[in-house]
């Protein structure tokens, strides 16, 4: 039902929505805390252990109680990204996220990268956690990628990817 509505990821929309959210929340300095943003949107974030076959789940959005569940065992920057990713689904694909076609986020995202919605949610998360207007403020100050990652509370690979996309670094 929802699979055919989106063939290619709409990066611009993901960026626009993230920027709008940051503007609405009056975010002016890093780090961007997606838990605070989720709370403002009325979305509760839970940290939980996933057992059995779901132990490799990074997180998922539960439409029943409008909550995001994050795997407690994952390391903090990954949890941050997972929350932002699920917020992306809530903001960009709410109808789909509330449907049975929704997919939970696994640690191994290799297959999910192909899905336009997952790519959009990732783009949303990157724009939410590492917005260009905040990155611009620190990029020319001789700060290492590692420090940038700490500053924005994201993983080093995520920061490197963002630096490469925004500034070709």
């Amino acid at each position, binding site marked *: 039902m929802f699979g055919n509505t989106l063939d290619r990821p709409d990066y611009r929309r993901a960026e626009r929505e993230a920027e709008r959210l940051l503007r609405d929340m009056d975010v002016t300095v890093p*780090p961007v805390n997606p838990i605070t943003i989720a709370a403002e949107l009325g979305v509760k974030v839970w940290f939980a252990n996933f*057992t*059995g076959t*779901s132990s490799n789940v990074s997180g*998922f959005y539960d439409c029943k109680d409008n909550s995001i*569940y994050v795997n407690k065992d994952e390391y903090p920057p990954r949890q941050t990204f997972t929350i932002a990713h699920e917020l992306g689904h809530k903001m960009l694909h709410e109808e789909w996220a509330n449907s049975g076609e929704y997919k939970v986020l696994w640690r191994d995202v290799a297959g999910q990268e192909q899905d336009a919605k997952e790519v959009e949610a990732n783009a949303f998360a990157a724009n939410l956690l590492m917005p260009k207007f905040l990155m611009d403020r620190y990029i020319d100050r001789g700060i290492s990628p590692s*420090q940038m990652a700490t*500053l*924005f509370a994201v993983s080093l690979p995520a920061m490197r990817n963002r630096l490469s996309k925004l500034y070709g670094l």
Partner: protein
Amino acid sequence: MASEPPSPGGERDIALTSVTDRVIITDRDAARHATAGKEGADPELTRNFGQAVHLQHQLDDKKETNRYKEVRYDKLIELSPVIIAAFVVILGFAVFIGCMFAALGHETQAEYWAKQGERGIGTAVAALAYIFGKSTK
């Protein structure tokens, strides 16, 4: 009655909704039921954000310190001609006084020392004029 053969994927299959993409597609209900010990916060994540905020403050402090240093440096650069001029004023007056004493001590060369003293005071006055000219701009 023959029983149904066990699923090759075992328990994992219960969590999967699609047989075509067993690796990534799962049932949200399965994940929901697999959650245990949920908590509203994660101390490690909170600490991580604390570190980020701390670094942000450090960087902002550093930026402010650098800005202050830059302002001071700019001011010093701007003031340096005046400082040099002030030094020339002092030197000029010192030369003048020195020459006056020399003229008093060597009456035969008084004219020579008076001339040098005049030059000294002339230089001091020119430097002083520069300072006043600069401050009125």
